[in-house]
């Protein structure tokens, strides 16, 4: 994709920070408000897609590096399955942190309550892990398909020139 006009780039520079922060907000508050790992990750990935489109595929490669995304994605997934493995004392996906007083272990007031971040044991950890994996993964998909579009198009022009 060729890059867009200067106006779009200025607006993008201004906005993408807020989108990423909003995405992390959704990931972190997954167990209180509607949302969670998948939805928050998709919001953050939409910021990367916006950057890619406004700066065009060649320039975007400089600050949206595929290897970092691939590393982030593997770390997110490994964290998710390791948190599931930690419950192996009782069973595979056991929520060993809930109501246990340690990290995310506060008791929840039953019924309607304003919502306390420090609850729901394993859930926030898993939300963060899945959010990490989804936004890195969707980032890779967007970048690779942009590369692919360039690559398949170039091939066709090469055939026409010959």
């Amino acid at each position, binding site marked *: 994709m060729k890059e867009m006009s200067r106006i779009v780039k200025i607006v993008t520079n201004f906005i993408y920070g807020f989108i990423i922060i909003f995405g992390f907000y959704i990931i972190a508050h997954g167990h209180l408000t509607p949302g969670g790992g998948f939805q928050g990750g998709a919001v953050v990935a939409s910021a990367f897609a916006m950057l890619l489109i406004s700066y065009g595929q060649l320039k975007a490669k400089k600050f949206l590096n595929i290897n970092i995304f*691939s590393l982030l994605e*593997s770390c997110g997934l490994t964290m998710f399955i390791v948190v599931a493995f930690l419950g192996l004392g009782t069973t595979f996906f056991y929520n060993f942190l809930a109501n246990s007083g340690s990290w995310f272990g506060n008791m929840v007031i039953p019924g309607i309550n304003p919502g306390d971040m420090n609850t729901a044991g394993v859930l926030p950890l898993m939300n963060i892990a899945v959010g990490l994996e989804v936004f890195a993964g969707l980032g890779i998909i967007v970048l690779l398909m942009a590369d692919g579009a360039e690559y398949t198009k170039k091939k066709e022009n090469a055939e026409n020139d010959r």
Partner: protein
Amino acid sequence: MNLLNHTPILILALPLLAAFLIPIIGKINKKATGIFATLVLGLSLILTIILAVKILSVGPQIYVFGAKSPLLTLPSSLKFPIRIMFQVDAMGIFMGLITALVSFLGAIYSLAFIDKKDGLDSYYSLLLLLTVSMFGMEFTGDLFNFFVFLEIASMASVSLICYRGTDLGEPVEAGFKYMVVSSIAALMVLFAIGIFYGEYDVLNIAAIASVIKYSQLDKIALGILVSVLAMKAGAVPMHMWTPDAYSEAPAPITMILVAASQASLYAIFRVVFSLYNITLNTLAVGWIIIIFGLLSMFIGVTMAIIQKDIKRLMAYHAISQTGYMLLGVGVGLAVLANPTALQRYGITAMEGGIFHIMNHAMYKGLLFLTAGALFFRTGTRDLNKMGGLAHYMKYTTIFFIIGAAAIAGLPPFNGFASKLLIYESVYKFNPLLSIIAMVVSILTLASFVKVFHSAFLGPKLPQFIEVKEVPRSMVFAMAVLSFIIIFFGLFPDLIVKNLVHPAVMSLIEQFKYTSTVLGGM
């Protein structure tokens, strides 16, 4: 030792963790990914054998995720299970053994088969994910969990079919066709799950089985599930994807794909026997499955004879062999209602059908590996271009003879053992069916003699002068498969008595399946 009662999940979780780590390992050292993947698959093969011994001695194993203890199926205040659980009975672990063995040998074979240039970590990661999804499909006791693993299986197998697609056109086209078929199949399975959830508000197979009433809706759900899973297993009406997918994928992956489509076949048996069992009109549904089987047998073999490409020929044979399994189990289902006929020949028919799944996975895998060895050395799959390879590739020729004899059902090999069971019992049910089965078996032998003649016999061709035997890791994988084929062929009743019979009984006795979960209600 608390690790032992976590075996069902460790078989699945360790390869999954390895699949997630492989992209990182791939960055550090390219060659380590292959060996790491093979070790992990070997470990999960050992765990599967441990679990199989435990199940065949003690009984079906339950593993509930996230509950206080692995066996706590029902929370205190409820009659229905609410968590996802693995319910591994004799039939599940029977298929699990096939999956573990086939994927372990596939990993060993591809150590030498896949070129080292690039994309190695993607290949092994996808291979591990395909194995994990097949284990998941066979062990799970939850319908929606089955749908998720069915989807992972189709995604992983499509990506592996397109693995050689960066510079060749055909693999991507074959992968696209398979992707469209398997995503429709998965979506329709999800629609059937929606129907079950809408009616009974429960997702566990055993819980639905205890509540199901075979109403108008359940008939539609059954129709959708059986037809769609038969499509995924490669039965005739929708078998167009099988020849392309099997011939374009790399050889070890084709072997695992055969086992993957048998996992969908296992899913049909699970739906028909454990979910519905007596509640459905066994004769009608039995005859539908028999017709599926007959069509697959006949069309598979007639299309196979005219093929020139060696892997396409074997792919059509895979369809016709799937027909045998459907025939055997279809007869067993047709007589499920009247116990006298069931005792007389129904159980032997099902034993033949299910034993044939194991045998087919073994000799079809061996045949695809030999075809891969030929492709590895000569670079072509076209039978007309090959010739006189017996002079150079001694071992591959022996393995091919073993595989071809087994698929045709010649006595000392395992194909004969299961086909004999099918012939005997199906003859008592309806003589015409077993005659067709025998004719198809003869045609299979005819087509493999043709392949053997055109590929191996004949004079030494000039362009194959420098061809020599395949590397040791490929020969080892083929040798293990041939040893199993011969061992099963010589002692079939040993395998049937303590591996196949419990599997058949676990399918037939639905009350045992439901009582293990609902606590003997």
